[in-house]
């Protein structure tokens, strides 16, 4: 399966605005794949959303899943 991941905030500086990831079946694998490909992500905490819902534990992905990753913003 191929996923077009939407990227927000400071993560764009590490990854770019969009990213295509292949061969992932669940969100844990997605996080591991991203952190291995972009080690800077390990220090930058980010949330994962699937179909516009916050992911709080490992969930399977389907070919219709829309994925977004977003860091915490701290400016005020």
């Amino acid at each position, binding site marked *: 399966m191929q996923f077009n991941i939407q990227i*927000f*905030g400071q993560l764009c500086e590490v990854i770019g605005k969009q990213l295509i990831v292949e061969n992932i079946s669940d969100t844990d694998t997605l996080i591991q794949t991203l952190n*291995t490909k972009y080690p800077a992500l390990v220090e930058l905490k980010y949330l994962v959303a699937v179909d516009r819902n*916050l992911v709080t534990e490992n969930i399977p992905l389907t070919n219709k899943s829309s994925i977004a990753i*977003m860091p*915490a*913003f*701290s*400016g*005020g």
Partner: protein
Amino acid sequence: MKSTFSKDRYERQLMLKNFGEAGQQKLFESKVLMIGAGGLGCSALAYLAAAGIGTIGIVDHDTVSLSNLHRQILYRTEDIGAFKSERAASFLKGINPEISTLIYLEKLTTSNAFDIISDYDFVIDGTDNFATKYLINDACVLLNKALIFGAISEYEGQVTIFNYKKNKQDESVNYRDVFPLPTSQSTALNCTTAGVLGVLPGIIGSMMANETIKLITGIGEALVNELFTYNALDNSSYQISLKARKKEHSTMPKDRKSFTEMDYDFFCNTQPAKDEISLDKFNQLLLSNNFEIIDIREKDEIPLITEFVCKQIPLSTLIQNESMIQAQTVVIICQSGKRSREAILVLQSIFKDSKKIISLEGGIMAYKKAFYKNG
């Protein structure tokens, strides 16, 4: 303060369907605390005061500087050097003398947060750093106060409402459900390091005021447990539904006592750690046997550690593998010393006082540098 509101002042609001005098009365009776009178705070405060929130508290101990003025719209050039909360309160009085304002010319800390926040019905976070954002979140959870949250990063901004239940049976979500562990402040961008277009906190702060008014009056659909993100460059928005995480391994303080003891600057990596050991002390420790070293880097990270014996348990799997940690004294090692701080917090929440958990200052990079320079 007058005992009732002036109908003429709020005429256009009173005309609104579903708002009316009942809505205005609710605003008039409400007490809202704005923490941070910067970019977000200024725009939120102006609209909240104009709308007729009866009591507005402002927490800010900072003074106005020239570089604030492009976005912090309550301040004038002649205010440079003056306290923001004083100038903001004075500006709000000018907009609406019918409301009460209280100012807190102090930094929000674990010592004063409970006393300040408990006097209010709603709390708005307009601060600009993670340490205070976690502190406000935790205090609001422990005091059961609704928190209207906002933050910006360059051209993007976020708004949501934490710790609020529309119905009794609903679950409430807080900041730690979204980001259980903080991004190190030294890694994160803020307005000082990354810049910000002045109008963006104006937009996001106005949204925060709007969400506050909706919560108080009960009109519309407020962003409860919904994280709204806006991009000022392309006008796109993205909304994510939030939910609570399992509480077992939360680093959230359990009560007022543990909240007071929490070191938020350490948690967010803004101050030197208390639980770090220097290279010299680490080298001394290596001569003894009564401890364990854990490398919490992910599996493929280099350089490999060959100079001393250590166990590899990546930070992401620490909780599942807690049984692998057996010694009373544990030294955590990562690449630069940053991730070790998080590992310490995770392990302290598991082991409490039964183990001494420390991290190596500067991580393996500092160790290798010194080892090969001297050796």
